[in-house]
């Protein structure tokens, strides 16, 4: 939608890249009706980066983003050695560098592990429902990051950079592919009902990309989008007459000053805004779903209702053509915890957080599958880093919590174009460091873009001297994950 309108790259360096201001007017490809605008769009299609760069496997993405650092060794990275060394000292030559610099004794995984499905994928009892869809998961066990500090690590997870001010993955994908619908934003964020993550909207910032690519956070209460409707209702007749008068005045303006692309685009944007006012309330109304569906997502009970609503809403948004939905699990840091940051007591922390999301996420996967949407939808289930195999406690002490671990952790992907029911990469026998087929966020991002039909080296935007990329100057597509 938005992208069909106009999004002028500020630095139009026609003398260099051959991209003129006019050519950069729009990145969209779908469903324009205004005659004048379709000519604009076709101009853009001819020259703009030739996206897709190759045939895409996935059309849309749902990103479940766990804040605080989910423990890989208690979820998807089974390390039997931990049980044997439970309560023992670390035997590494190198003293691990962690956030709080307290290296306690080794702790066994607090949840039992079993193999599940035909694939025999190891999933712990932390996620009993996700275990039932094990055959649909593509687990990466060898992730690494460059920071063990929450916010820089989260920024890196989402932008490739540890600093403020870079566009997030959802914005890049919106920039690259636009939206399949005119009535909804290309990139929607569904924050945790308990609060925004630390850093607030920086977590879904468009950075230097045009603002049209910013994540639009849907409120869990009240009107989903700010300014969707006036605070006090305006009579329908007044509304209709106002729009008519506005259209007439804008026509008058065209006659007075001459036609410009931007003016036509703005006239069209008013029409699209009116369409949004119809679509958004409709898509966010979960009462339209059957009782069985609502129950499947856990809307009928306390621990799962909040996250379940967001999972169900994300399916509805994807159905309507939203390109990228990000569901956030976890709010800001600090105590008492409302995220996955189990410094003090892993069992208590992870049980609470997992219970909120396990059934809803599994339901989302099943639901997409039964609607044949999993074929061209990409599901991402990620966290900024993992946790240490030793406890966060004094020397020689066995604590109940684990510190941040950027050297090795796990995530999973599911859906379009992936080999499913499989693991990729390994950490060492304790799950501390990634040792085989190491995957950095750059590689992960490159792979995500690849599945969406984009070459991560070609999806670029000029900003302050550099053709910027989601993957900076790194990244390799992980071919082994592709079906």
């Amino acid at each position: 939608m938005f992208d069909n309108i106009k999004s002028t790259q500020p630095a139009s360096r026609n003398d260099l890249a051959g991209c003129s201001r006019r050519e950069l007017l729009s990145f969209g490809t779908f469903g324009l009706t205004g005659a004048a605008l379709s000519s604009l769009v076709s101009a853009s299609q001819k020259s703009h980066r030739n996206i897709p760069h190759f045939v895409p496997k996935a059309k849309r993405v749902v990103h479940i983003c766990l804040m605080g650092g989910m423990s890989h060794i208690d979820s998807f990275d089974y390390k039997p050695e931990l049980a044997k060394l439970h309560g023992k000292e670390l035997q590494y030559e190198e003293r691990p560098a962690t956030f709080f610099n307290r290296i306690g004794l080794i702790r066994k995984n607090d949840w039992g592990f079993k193999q599940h499905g035909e694939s025999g994928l190891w999933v712990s009892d932390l996620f009993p429902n996700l275990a039932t869809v094990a055959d649909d998961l593509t687990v990466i066990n060898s992730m690494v990051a460059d920071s063990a500090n929450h916010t820089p690590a989260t920024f890196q997870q989402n932008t490739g950079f540890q600093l403020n001010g870079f566009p997030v993955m959802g914005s890049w994908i919106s920039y690259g592919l636009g939206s399949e619908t005119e009535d909804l934003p290309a990139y929607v964020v569904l924050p945790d009902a308990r609060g925004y993550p630390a850093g607030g909207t920086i977590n879904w910032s468009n950075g230097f990309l045009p603002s049209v690519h910013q994540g639009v956070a849907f409120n869990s209460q009240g009107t989903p989008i700010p300014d969707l409707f006036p605070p006090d209702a305006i009579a329908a007749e007044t509304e209709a007459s106002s729009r008519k008068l506005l259209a007439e005045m804008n026509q008058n303006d065209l006659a007075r000053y001459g036609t410009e692309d931007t003016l036509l685009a703005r006239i069209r944007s008013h029409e699209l805004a009116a369409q949004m006012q119809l679509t958004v309330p409709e898509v966010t109304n979960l009462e339209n779903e059957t009782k069985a569906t609502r129950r499947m997502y856990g809307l009928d009970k306390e621990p799962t209702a909040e996250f379940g609503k967001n999972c169900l809403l994300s399916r509805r948004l994807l159905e309507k053509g939203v390109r990228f939905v990000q569901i956030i699990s976890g709010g800001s840091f600090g105590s008492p915890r409302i995220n996955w940051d189990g410094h003090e007591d892993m069992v208590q922390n992870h049980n609470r957080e997992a219970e909120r999301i396990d059934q809803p996420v599994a339901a989302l996967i099943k639901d997409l599958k039964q609607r044949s949407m999993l074929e061209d939808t990409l599901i991402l289930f990620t966290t900024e880093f993992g946790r240490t195999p030793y406890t966060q406690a004094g020397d020689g002490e066995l604590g109940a919590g684990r510190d941040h671990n950027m050297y090795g952790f796990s995530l999973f992907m599911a859906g379009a174009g992936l080999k499913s029911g499989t693991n990729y990469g390994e950490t060492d026998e304790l799950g501390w460091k990634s040792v085989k087929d190491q995957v950095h966020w750059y590689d992960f991002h490159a792979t995500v873009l690849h599945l969406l039909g984009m070459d991560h080296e070609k999806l670029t935007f000029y900003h302050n001297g550099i053709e910027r990329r989601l993957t900076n100057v790194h990244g390799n597509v992980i071919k082994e994950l592709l079906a």
Partner: protein
Amino acid sequence: MMTPRNPATARSVLLNQLVALLAICQLTPVYAEPIKFQEQIAPILVSRCLQCHQGSDLQGGLNLTDLSSLMQGGDSGAAIVAGSATKSLLWERVRSDEMPPDNPLTNHEKAAIEQWIEEGAVWEGSPIDLFSITTDQRAGRDWWSLQPLQKVEPPSFDSGWTRNSIDQFIYQNLLAKQIEPSTEADRRTLIRRLTYDLIGLPPTPREVEIFTQDTSDNAYEKLVDRLLNSPHYGERWGRHWLDVVHFGESNGFEYNQPRNNAWPYRNWVINSLNDDMPYDEFVRQQIAGDILAPDSGGTIAVACLVTGPHNTTKPSNDTMRKTMRQDEMEDMVGMVNQAFLGMTTNCARCHDHKFDPISSSDYYSMVSALAGVEFGERDIPLDPNTVQKAKQLKAQINELTLTLNTLEQEARDAVVRQQVEEANPNSGPQPIAAWNFQADLSDQIGELDVTLFGTAKRDTQGLVLDGMTAFARTERLTQPLSEKTLEAWVRVEDLNQQGGGVISVQSSDGVVFDAIVFAEREPKRWMAGSNGFSRYESFAASNETDPKNLIHIAITYAADGKISGYRNGFPYGNSYTKNLVTFAAESSEVVLGLRHGVEAGGNRMFRGTIAQARLYDRVLSAEEVAASAQSNGIHVVTEAELVAQLTPRKRDKRVQLIQQIKQTHEMLKGIENNSVWTALSIPAATVNVLVRGNVLREGDVVSPRGLSAIQIIESDFGLKPDAAEQDRRLQLARWITDPNNPLFSRVIVNRIWHYHFGIGMVSTPNDFGFNGGKPTHPLLLDWLASELQENQWSLKHLHRLIVTSATYRQASKMNSKAAAIDSENRYLWRKTPTRLEGEALRDSLLAIAGKLDPRIGGKGYRDMKEYKYKGSHFYDPIPQNQPEQFRRTIYRFSPRGAKRTMLDTFDCPDPSTLTPQRAETTTPLQSLALMNNEFVLEMAQATAKDLETHQTSPKDQVRELIRRAYSREAEQQEIERAVPFIQKHGLSAYCRVVFNSNELLYVR
């Protein structure tokens, strides 16, 4: 074939026309003329080989920068045998496509190399390096923007169209392109354009009327002067500058704390622009104003260096902390080079710049120049009136305190005499432990005797701690401890230390703790330290200033979570509320000199002397703390005992005195609160190149200096690697603003041009390097740069030149013939219409409604509420319906990562990003905001109300609104359409429609 990028390369290609032996692509081309080294070989070496084969990190040990190195060769032996390509290793590697890896040379390049070797490998001229020449891959030191300004005379074109020298340049180019310039816009278009452009507001109907009726020859020039002299000029152009330096009012990252006192920098920018401070001085002050002009705003000006994000979530791990410091330096060095010089240097943090002649060594030299800059707050000098007033208040406080002290001292002495007589040392606030380190290490009350660790020692001054290994630990607590007061008499011997603990109660594993900590989060200030900062909040109190002072410091922790600090017996800033923690008996202890932990190390160690310390299992009242402080720890007198000792008259007198002292303190605090967010100057370290940007891989030591690619000025500051911090920044400021620095004046001229025309002569205002745009009018750019310098760097002079040109005054009407040749209007055959920025839009609605508060400066307003949740700060929009919010948008408090508002929707950038140019998007969310946003509707109502009070008939109301919003007279047809609408739906509904219309949103 190579696409030539500069004329020299182009010529060389032409000179060496290929003999046509290329019919079949497999054939190796042969050049008819002998190969010319400088024109044909050097560019290949520079663009294809030297990235790996020069400098200290030679691949294969092979250096390709001069002939003797080439002959000597690398690990595999000599690279070249002159006269025989087949015997030359270099040719072998190149021919087989082994080198360069991944991206082999073209047949033509190969042919040139082969032939050159065959012809004897003649090396003309001096050694080459990666930066020696510009190639099709990268810019060298000969890059256009690095060359000295050209002395240019405006081309002489005698045309009826031209008005000043600018037009002569513009007209020359248009003629060459066979494009006709546009005629001058009409008067009311000009005044609307000019008023928005120079002050960011719409002209009032009265102003439009005066201008359109002014028949004098210099009516336009008078208008320009009026606007340039308007104090709103600084607000408009200050906003542009704040974009360039990414001015934001919170730290960003996890905690995202507000910077409540960052606004003075914004006002400094506004005032400096209004005063037309010479641009070179404007910049010098922003780099080194604290040194150059400490008494006239310079200390505020250097806040420029620390406007960016700043991560205050510091891990314990040293490597992680060092990397975070390098992140800060990247932001700072990147901003300085982009804002002032249009050079992007960030890439060179990890490797030599891939596109511009900037080495890692250049980058780290700039890091060295700024290495002593730290994020923080400083007390700035007060103006003389305030100083005088503060002096009076201080004298009053001293007098009152003396009276109080005298009154209390008599009573206290009496109590003490009684205590001594009654031998009752347990009266008064009873500590559970007390140490007098001036005497010994024992607990005078209980069993918490102290053991020393590391270099800790005791002398007659007390417990002496070196900030390195020294600390002391007590036996374990015998009782659980929840409510508590920590108290110490202490000398801070190093005011620059950061994070040492004086006295700390901790779990015996050192994890959970409550401590009196010095300067961990705010330099030179006390704080309540705790695990993960969970019981920390700034007391917002004063800095320590003298390391010789013996200070009494106490922190109380109440059952309801209230935490209060006291310094020398008076409340230390503000109390706040957190959770109370309980320390278990037998597994808790007290440590002194160590913030927390089981061993020494890091920034947790305190440097100074602790004379005495005490621990209480309850919250002392303010009076008790004061009494304890005054007693200097020798005798403890309770408030009750003190009061009991006083006569009723003296009691009343005392209450009155305390009240008066409190009030006077409040007044003093109010006027003396002169702490501003700005750059701190700390001792600057010696800086090394960090190989691949890795903090663990230190390379060569560098001296502070400028970019070596600008050869016309000396980049060497003549400073040693360990030079004093202030010398480094002073030299940096001088080097950047050197009149011969060609980038400095070109970049600002282009920036100003960019804001006037919507696009610069160079389309990338922050990048004059290889990846940036090339100037459309290079001679005009240089002419204006010289003009700026010759006119005392007056930006207003530059504005005046630009806006009085015929080029600027053109009408904006589309001309399809011209557009077919130059669709983007880069050659300026018309004035491109622009959309109002978010700020200008909001300011316009306020102005049209008659609600705009036009005051200049001050602290500003907020359209959000700030709250803290789980340690992070959040900023949520609140309604804008209070008059104090009706100020110009530049005065809006602007934190990073705040919730979306109408301004973001209209492309106002988050201040995390350097924004040399705004995007101009058109989206349905903008449409929703303009239609439905509470503020817009509020303004529509206010406008209607204002119109109704001044004009009675709907026709006149329409006429007046059209004048205010569009700066023109309403047409009959417009009125006829509007009046029935107003009669049916109301005037405010009509205002809402006008606010949404294109004619309001676009400036022609």
